[in-house]
């Protein structure tokens, strides 16, 4: 045991000593934090996009303006909700509706918008609360460039707009200029053409950027709304009543029968917790994948550098193997531990939007069986893959040979990554059940299903399967390791390896 520990200690120290290891560990949370930070920043600093509307039908320009304005007011209300959440005085409740469904937004607009709401909210806010910043308007309708005659034919107007749409010219917007994001051309028969094919598209949306579909979506909403309104009027339906009815918002309570009586309501924290297994699967995968590279490299180094022989004169092959397994497992746990600790500390320090939801979610994760489940899956998954990678390492003469094995192993290891979202969505489905019983994927699948309370039989069965597989693979690896570590030159034939594994026959 002393020698196993000595070997483990060396493996651990030599890997933990390298800068690359720590850089690798901290890169993941750092990248995560940066990408979250950057995308939040980007969302807040998205520039306004300008578009022009040439409406020869005269029916849609106003509804479109109204729809764009309504959407903007909704985002203002949303930002206001977040602002209030961040700056609410303890124990206070806002007495305005800050939800963002239609009726709430309509009420917000009707009440006079942000100024009216802010005046009502002021007493509930902290004294040193910062000024509320209205989000930028995402889409702004610009005037048609002066040289283009709105009365000209559609083709002429389009020809005049093309240099702007292609970025060769810029349109004038209050006191400056900007690039034209899109142009909407509506023919005189636009109302008719909106619902009926008239030989050409009566309503045309032109833009070089078709990836951003927010604007055409909003325009489509406006077109639909106005077209329907006209149909209601034509058929004598009261438009005001229709609007009123459309604004109703049905309640749907969501409950989980797994939870204790009285607390069955599914909260946002619950939803986060439900998705956490995916994060754990990813963590599991990353950690196992990373340490397997280390294990493989170290084993190949010992073989190709002929260190194995010196070691074997002092310790038994089993002691070497167990030492390596232990040392590298320590590395893996250090990595995982650092990641988890980083996340928990980051959550403790985080006070931004959503903190009131994330905090309880993290607490419920910590209290749930997910972390012990993760450790169990990590340990057994580690042993299963270590058995494979140790054998590969012992069989290869140098790192080049090892890499040729690594390719197929990588592909095999990618499967849990591809399937993790589907399994999380349907944790008791066919895919989840099948993957549970494939030993190489059991750890990842069980981790993924852990939050959905899989049947006890499957839980126990899968654990037994993982233990049995790990034992079998480690035992085989031990035999292969003993036989292959001293062998140089030609790789042993497959039949020979099978014989080693089965018989443990000596060289």
């Amino acid at each position: 045991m002393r020698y196993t520990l000595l070997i483990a200690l060396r493996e651990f120290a030599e890997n933990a000593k390298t800068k690359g290891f720590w850089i690798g560990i901290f890169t993941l949370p750092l990248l995560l934090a940066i990408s979250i930070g950057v995308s939040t920043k980007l969302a807040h600093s998205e520039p306004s996009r300008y578009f022009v509307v040439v409406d020869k039908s005269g029916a849609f320009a106003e509804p479109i303006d109204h729809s764009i304005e309504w959407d903007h007011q909704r985002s203002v209300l949303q930002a206001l909700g977040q602002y209030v959440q961040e700056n609410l005085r303890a124990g206070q409740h806002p007495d305005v509706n800050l939800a963002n469904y239609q009726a709430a937004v309509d009420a917000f607009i009707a009440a006079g918008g942000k100024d009216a709401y802010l005046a009502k909210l002021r007493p509930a806010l902290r004294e040193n609360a910062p000024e509320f910043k209205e989000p930028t308007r995402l889409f702004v309708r610009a005037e048609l460039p002066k040289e283009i005659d709105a009365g000209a034919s559609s083709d002429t107007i389009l020809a005049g707009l093309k240099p702007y749409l292609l970025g060769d010219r810029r349109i004038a917007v209050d006191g400056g200029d900007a690039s034209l994001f899109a142009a909407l051309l509506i023919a005189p028969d636009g109302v008719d053409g909106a619902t009926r094919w008239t030989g050409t598209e009566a309503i045309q949306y032109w833009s070089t950027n078709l990836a951003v579909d927010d604007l055409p979506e909003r325009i489509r909403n406006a077109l639909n709304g106005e077209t329907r309104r006209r149909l209601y009027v034509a058929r004598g339906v009261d438009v005001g009543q229709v609007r009123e009815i459309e604004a109703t918002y049905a309640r749907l309570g969501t409950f989980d029968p797994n939870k204790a009586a009285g607390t069955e309501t599914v909260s946002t924290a619950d939803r986060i917790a439900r998705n956490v297994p995916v994060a754990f699967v990813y963590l599991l995968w990353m950690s196992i994948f990373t340490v397997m590279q280390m294990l493989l490299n170290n084993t190949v180094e010992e073989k190709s550098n002929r260190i194995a022989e010196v070691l074997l004169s002092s310790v038994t092959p089993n002691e070497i193997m167990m030492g390596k397994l232990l040392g590298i497992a320590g590395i893996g746990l250090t990595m995982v531990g650092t990641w988890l600790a980083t996340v928990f500390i980051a959550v403790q320090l985080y006070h931004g939007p959503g903190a009131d939801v994330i905090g309880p979610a993290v607490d419920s994760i910590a209290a749930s069986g997910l972390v012990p489940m993760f450790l169990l899956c990590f340990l057994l998954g580690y042993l299963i893959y270590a058995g494979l990678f140790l054998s590969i390492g012992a069989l290869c003469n140098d790192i080049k040979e090892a890499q040729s094995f690594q390719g197929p192993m990588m592909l095999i290891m990618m499967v849990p990554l591809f399937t993790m979202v589907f399994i999380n969505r349907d944790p008791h489905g066919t895919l989840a059940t099948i993957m549970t019983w494939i030993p190489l994927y059991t750890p990842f699948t069980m981790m993924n299903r852990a939050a959905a309370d899989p049947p006890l039989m499957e839980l126990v069965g899968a654990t037994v399967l993982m233990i049995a597989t790990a034992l079998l693979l480690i035992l085989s690896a031990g035999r292969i390791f003993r036989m292959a570590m001293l062998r140089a030159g030609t790789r042993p034939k497959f039949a020979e390896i099978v014989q080693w594994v089965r018989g443990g026959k000596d060289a």
Partner: protein
Amino acid sequence: MNDQVLELDNVTKRFGDFTAVHGVSLTIPRGSIYGFLGPNGAGKTTTIRMIFDIIKPTSGRISILGASSAIDVRRRIGYLPEEKGLYKAMSAAATIAYFASLKGLSRKAAKQRAYELLERYGLGKFADTRIQALSKGMGQKVQVICAVAHEPELVVLDEPFSGLDPVNQQVLEGLIRDLAQRGSTVLFSTHVMQHAERLCDHMLLIAKGRKIFDGTIAGAKATIPRRVLISTESSIDPLVGLDDVAEIKPLGESPSSPGARDWEIRLRGQTGAQTSAQTILEKCFQSGIVLRRFDQSEPSLHDAFVALVGTDASTREPA
């Protein structure tokens, strides 16, 4: 205390159909420097691996320091394998300390010993240098130190001289003598006879897995017949039929003296006896044989090796 540190009794190793070692027996007396000689592929490394219980013999018995497995006495033996390798990213001192701790030294004592030995063998300055930054010679020295850091009773060095320049070879020879003086028994394998000739008390010669000779260096030399080499332009007929002459072999045109021919005259009698050669020389004078060269030097271990193993297997490397 047993006086034999190592005993092999009729040890055979087969790999499938191939017999790498064939019924080899040997005993190594305590305190000796024992040469394990043989051409490449003779089975030296396989034998050494069996000694260390890294691979098991197919048949036969091995006793090392009184134990049947080297693992039981690992603290008391040291090993330098033929293929040398160390962890490239570790420092010299850490490497030595690591291997010494695997031999049972406490981590503290191992570390102390590492620095001490590096200092003693002139590598003190490089103690904290990574192995990959050391020259090949230095790396090999570090590895030899790894093998002996725990002051083993028996040290086995497999081809310790290979890949070393003459200066470092000499340093290593010094180190081996030093070990013996400190009371260790040293077994080293080589296919370069000069090292064995300078260092060994005893030697074992194997070829194609079989033992060919086991004994002292002088004994090995005595196995080859005494001879005199001459170059002359004259006829050598007068020498034929002399009592001391067993056989005369023509060796062809002399490469060093144009026009002369080389001859090997094999003698009867004991090695070292001067009388026979003297008789031949006198006879040459009497018969008017003009000698360009008369060489009655002692056979070297190399000659013995070639004679015992056969010319094919001879390997001559500069010492």
